[in-house]
């Protein structure tokens, strides 16, 4: 039996022996074990299945260049123009999948439906097969059964027009398939283009210059391949293999996809600026992880436009220098000061580029008092009549507030009263009282 999850999962496949003992698809693992005690339960590993299926499709590429992936477990191969007869084709396909040690059925048919139906047929004919192979809705199957239609042959014998009029538009396809006609197009899977370059030498690199030289060579090779494919790299993965067996990977994204070796090299150098290896480097591999269509934004009269390549390099350098991604802020409504803004990663967004075209030129800035946030710290405040009169023994000259902030009632309730105060030394600051304590939040500057 095959279950989707180890403990609280459900059975998704049963073999005939387990079915005989009473286990059914849809049972919980507990129910299935109770029904068929001695049967072994395997857990379905979706990621591994997908990887294996991908490998199988790759293996089938050796049989035909056109492989239609119809989901895990079913693939169609276009064998037109390929030498040999049906039996030879089947033998080749089975041979290609031999290494996977999985039960495989391969048949030859004129179209996708017939080929699929023939995998269930023992005598090479689809006529005697039950109508369930059409994968109809249970209700439609039931209606056909009531009419005495149980096999494809019986369905094919019905007159097309009256059958379609009675069962609706979809019935035309059922009837066609029952007669061995399937217009479903063949969709060959796209071959994933991979661009990478590797350097492995007999010796090892101990100097930074040696590694950079190898990097430059690899970047040139990769960029040549990119140029040939008409693509640009959106992200590059660099894999270092060290003498002591360590393997370290570095992913570097580009703000704008590039095929320029210099830019790739600059970004990678920036990424590696703070990196040290514990042993000499013996192997180096550069792999393009995200291929994008080539072409850069061309802007006329954009003198003030930032060079995206330079910006990408700067972002990578900043990330390497500070260990955090450079960001841009955005504002949002919130009761507390701290909640009124948030950060997200800084990228060269299209929006940013496009807005330059309709730029505005504020002749005079809107002067607005600017609050500078300070590290929140407790302060000594003397109050009189609910208003602060001194802060750290400095007289309060003017005061505005309090403004009650009541936030986080659903999680961590925060109730505080905020004030703007002007102190005798000229400090203009935002303070607040939370419970019995007073805190300094920021200073206007």
């Amino acid at each position, binding site marked *: 039996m095959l279950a989707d999850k180890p403990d609280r999962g459900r059975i998704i496949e049963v073999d005939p022996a387990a079915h005989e003992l009473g286990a059914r698809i849809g049972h919980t693992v507990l129910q299935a074990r109770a029904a068929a005690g001695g049967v072994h339960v395997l857990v379905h590993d979706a990621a591994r299945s997908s990887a294996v299926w991908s490998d199988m499709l790759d293996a089938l590429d050796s049989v035909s260049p056109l492989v239609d992936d119809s989901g895990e477990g079913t693939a169609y191969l276009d064998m037109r123009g390929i030498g040999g007869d049906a039996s030879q084709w089947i033998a080749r396909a089975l041979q290609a999948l031999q290494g996977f040690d999985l039960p495989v059925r391969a048949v030859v048919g004129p179209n996708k439906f017939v080929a699929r139906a023939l995998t269930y047929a023992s005598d090479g004919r689809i006529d005697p097969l039950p109508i369930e192979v059409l994968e109809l809705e249970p209700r439609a199957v039931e209606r056909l059964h009531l009419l005495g239609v149980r096999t494809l042959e019986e369905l094919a014998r019905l007159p097309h027009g009256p059958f379609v009029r009675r069962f609706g538009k979809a019935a035309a396809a059922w009837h066609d398939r029952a007669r061995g006609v399937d217009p479903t197009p063949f969709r060959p899977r796209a071959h994933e283009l991979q661009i990478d370059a590797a350097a492995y030498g007999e010796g090892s690199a101990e100097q930074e210059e040696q590694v950079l030289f190898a990097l430059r060579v690899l970047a040139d090779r990769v960029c040549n391949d990119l140029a040939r494919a008409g693509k640009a790299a959106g992200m590059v993965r660099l894999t270092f293999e060290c003498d002591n067996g360590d393997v370290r990977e570095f992913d570097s994204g580009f703000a704008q996809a590039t095929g320029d070796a210099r830019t790739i090299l600059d970004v990678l150098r920036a990424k590696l600026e703070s990196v040290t290896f514990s042993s000499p480097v013996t192997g180096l591999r550069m792999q393009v992880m995200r291929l994008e269509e080539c072409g850069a934004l061309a802007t006329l009269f954009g003198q003030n436009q930032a060079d995206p390549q330079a910006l990408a390099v*700067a972002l990578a350098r900043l990330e390497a220098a500070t260990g*955090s991604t450079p960001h841009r802020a955005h504002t949002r409504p919130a009761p507390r000061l701290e909640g009124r803004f948030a950060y997200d990663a800084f990228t060269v967004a299209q929006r940013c580029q496009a807005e330059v075209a309709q730029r505005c030129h504020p002749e005079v800035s809107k002067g607005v008092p600017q609050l500078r946030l300070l590290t929140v710290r407790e302060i000594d405040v003397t109050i009189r009549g609910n208003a602060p009169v001194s802060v750290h023994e400095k007289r309060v000259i*003017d005061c505005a507030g309090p403004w009650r902030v009541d936030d986080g009632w659903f999680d961590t309730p925060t109730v505080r009263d905020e004030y703007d105060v002007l102190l005798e030394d000229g400090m203009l600051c935002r303070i607040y009282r939370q419970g019995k304590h007073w805190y300094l939040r920021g200073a206007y500057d």
Partner: protein
Amino acid sequence: MSVMADDRAAFAALKAGLDVRAAGLIVAVSPQAFSSGFAGLDRALGGGFPRGTLATLEGAASSGRTAILAGALAQATSRGLAALVDDGSVYPPDLERAGVQLERTLIVAAQTPLEIARCADILLRSRAFAVVAMPATPLRATVWSRLCGLAQKSGTILFVLGLHASTELAYFASTRVRCAIDRVLWSGKSGVLCELAGYELNAHVLKHRRAAPGATARLHIVDERIGHAAALRPRSDVSPMRSAAGHPVGRTGSACG
């Protein structure tokens, strides 16, 4: 006679133009100057902050430095990109209200002096930003020299904000502006209905390599949402006018922002 009349008319037009210019209604901004966003300060600076230089905005915690910086950032982000090396004090909602386009402002967090200098170095080297701002940190003269050179090469203005400039920084800065809030403006009487509307500050040009230093601009920083400057008055008699770190404030009244 008609020729003479034409000459007189042309002369009168020219004179009127010069008078208007002299009256400060038009600020001639040279292409090398970067407008601060405040006409008064631009006049005091002889057109604005020179591009490709290092400029300091000095003053105590509540002196109006950030308001001037916000004006420059608003100007920069209206045309391109700007960058801020943040030591944790940036409050983006107020920057946005001052006209800064946050989506074009790169904010990079850095804490130690070395990190701050390194970030400024990277930002200047990219040549992607019209304005880069960083907090004043104790750095060696060689670092300031390098940053100054990079700013010159990239045509970027590097603003350094701090209480006062160290000897090294003061040497390499092309422009030094000292700020001090003169009067604080409130929108009403004390209490819940009162709000901070803004302040008037004096920006004194301590140093200018391309123009005469010593001018002072008086700037009105007033939040328009709360009220107009004309309708606002300081509530208390005590003016918190001060000169940070004991530096003398220069001549006043030369220009109004």
